[in-house]
């Protein structure tokens, strides 16, 4: 306001933006009429010709004036840049996702869950997964459960949020891969719906419990029943740039901007409505690089006197375990 002072100065800029917006809608409409409504191509082209000629002539008429007002143009470009970067960066990072079949690890997860010797990490352990199919999961999630510190839980949940093309869908699907042990939940949410995962997930738990579809197989049921609904731990993955990435220059720039923007944005935990719960954040580099050639030579290996190399390790069942697994 202070910048423009008079309403007449703003009019040109205003008109320009509106014309662009209309042009864009026309473009999208072109796609809509042709593909969704399946109108005849000639008819669609004719309509588009009419609209475009009107709008483009306006565009030209206004474009001249807008060159006098650089600040607003910069503002719009900034907005555009954010949207563009955000969208493209997601596509790029998705390239680095490694999916493996969940079914291969179902037994291992079940065994881990039943292994009472390992301290319990959570009753309900929830991972958010981007895998479209229930039978897949990110390699890095399995690694998180089993390869780093073992995370034992009563039930392992893999939650996927799917944004539909409709605005207000709110549906969920449950897929029990291993009864009461390894469960996948898909939320189908419309694009105008806020993904309050914690709320949604608690509701699912509630319904499953009410319908007696979930059974607790623990010996100490009396104590644990009370925290059945509330002992939920979410594990979120934060992607970080690793040094070893080999990206095209354009992708690199986009990702740099993306991570910079992320600093300002809400973190995933708050964004998904998880801030009341126990949330563990794990940092995973974007690209797990192969170990580089390390010229590290062993110079010495000393031991207390009188000892020898330990026996090969044995696990509780008496099977030999390969060292270094």
């Amino acid at each position, binding site marked *: *306001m*202070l910048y423009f*002072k*008079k*309403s*007449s100065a703003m*009019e040109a*800029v*205003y*008109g320009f*933006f*509106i*014309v*662009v*917006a*209309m*042009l*864009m*809608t*026309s*473009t*999208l*409409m072109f*796609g*809509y*009429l042709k593909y*969704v409504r399946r109108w005849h191509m000639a008819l669609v082209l004719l309509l588009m010709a*009419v609209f475009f000629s*009107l709008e483009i*002539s*306006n565009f030209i*008429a206004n474009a*001249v*004036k807008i060159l006098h007002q650089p600040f*607003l143009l910069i*503002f*719009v470009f900034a*907005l*555009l840049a*954010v*949207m*563009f970067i*955000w*969208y493209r960066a*997601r596509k790029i990072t998705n390239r680095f996702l490694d999916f493996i079949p969940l079914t291969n690890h179902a037994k291992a997860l079940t065994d881990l869950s039943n292994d009472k010797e390992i301290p319990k990490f959570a009753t309900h352990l929830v991972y958010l997964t981007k895998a479209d199919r229930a039978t897949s999961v990110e390699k890095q999630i399995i690694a998180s459960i089993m390869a780093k510190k073992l995370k034992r839980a009563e039930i392992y949940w893999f939650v996927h949020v799917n*944004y539909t*093309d*409709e*605005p*207000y869908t709110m549906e969920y699907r449950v897929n029990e891969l291993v009864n009461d042990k390894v469960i996948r939940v898909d939320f189908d949410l419309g*694009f*105008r*719906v*806020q993904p309050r995962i914690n709320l949604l997930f608690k509701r699912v738990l509630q319904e499953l419990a009410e319908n007696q579809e979930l059974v607790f197989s623990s010996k100490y049921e009396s104590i644990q029943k009370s925290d059945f609904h509330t002992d939920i731990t979410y594990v979120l993955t934060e992607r970080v740039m690793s040094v070893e990435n080999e990206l095209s220059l354009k992708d690199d720039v986009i990702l740099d901007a993306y991570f910079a*923007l992320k600093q*300002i944005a*809400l973190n*995933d935990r*708050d*964004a998904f409505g998880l801030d009341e719960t126990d949330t563990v954040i794990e940092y995973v580099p974007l690209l797990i690089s192969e170990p580089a050639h390390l010229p590290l030579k062993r110079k010495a290996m000393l031991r207390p006197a009188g000892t020898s190399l330990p026996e090969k390790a044995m696990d509780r069942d008496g099977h030999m375990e390969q060292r270094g697994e």
Partner: protein
Amino acid sequence: MGNPHKYSKVTAASLLVALGIIYGDIGTSPLYVFKAIVHGHLISEQLIYGGISCIVWTLTLQTTFKYIYLTLQADNRGEGGVFSLYALVRRYGKWLYIPAILGATTLLADGVIQPPISISSAVEGLAGVRAFSDSISPGNNLTIGIVIVIIALLFFFQRFGTKVVGFAFGPIMLVWFSMLFILGAVQIADHPEVLKCLNPYYAYDLLTNYPGGFWLLGAVFLCTTGAEALYNDMGHCGLQNIRRTWVFVKIALLTNYMGQGAWLIASAGPELGERNPFYAIMPQWFLLIGVGIATAAAVVACQAVISGSFTLINEAITLNFWPRVKVKFPTEIRGSTSRASTGSCSSVASA
């Protein structure tokens, strides 16, 4: 939040609601369109008649045909707007996200510009009131000060949600459009020749024969601002409500534009100067009331635009076009949500 199929029945109440929410932007255009067209030019029949003709035909081709008829059919479960449309068609082309984000950013930019334009155009009318004509004129500090105060209040009230005053929007716009119609009709009655502008020949003449006529299209186009907002807010009111109220709205708008034109031809003299033909057609005794109504209508329009911007950002977030930012849900009117941080950005930008 969840409002499924909004193909609401048409009732008197629903029509009123539609009036209040949808037509704010497009309805306040008479405040600045004609002034923008004539500004700096000598008044002549060619200019005025041509201008009216252009407005009539632009409103018809663009707004009535393209939007009210055609685009409103492209609904995504009753919802409209550039992102809803994108969601419908994105599977057919990866590149379609580019027009989507272009459209969205320009709409957001409009959302920032629209409040200052409409409110200042409304307030500048005070310059015509004889008592104020020394202290108020477009561009001077007092005017700007008033406008900023109004804008600040508007954004401040975003925090409380708009349910409280929302029910008043419909009646305010009803009064507004009726006023437009009456003022315009009075002028046309005095100079009925202006009705011949409905003939597109005059538009053609302006564009081809008037020096610099083509460039005036930019100003003419301002009359359609708000068509996008119409599409965006469609989900709140339903198709039928919008179509029926449009009949009334368009008549009121056209009458007023022609009234302004009639006045310009007959009484304005060779140059317009800083006057606004919208206010010039009001009798002096009515001017203060007129400014009041105009300001109220402008505020209603801004409110609709602000809600529209918030919905746009929310959609962008979900569709992965925007980082997740804190969203607050004060009250909701039929699915429109209000957000404090965008509000403060817009208010800072507007100021």
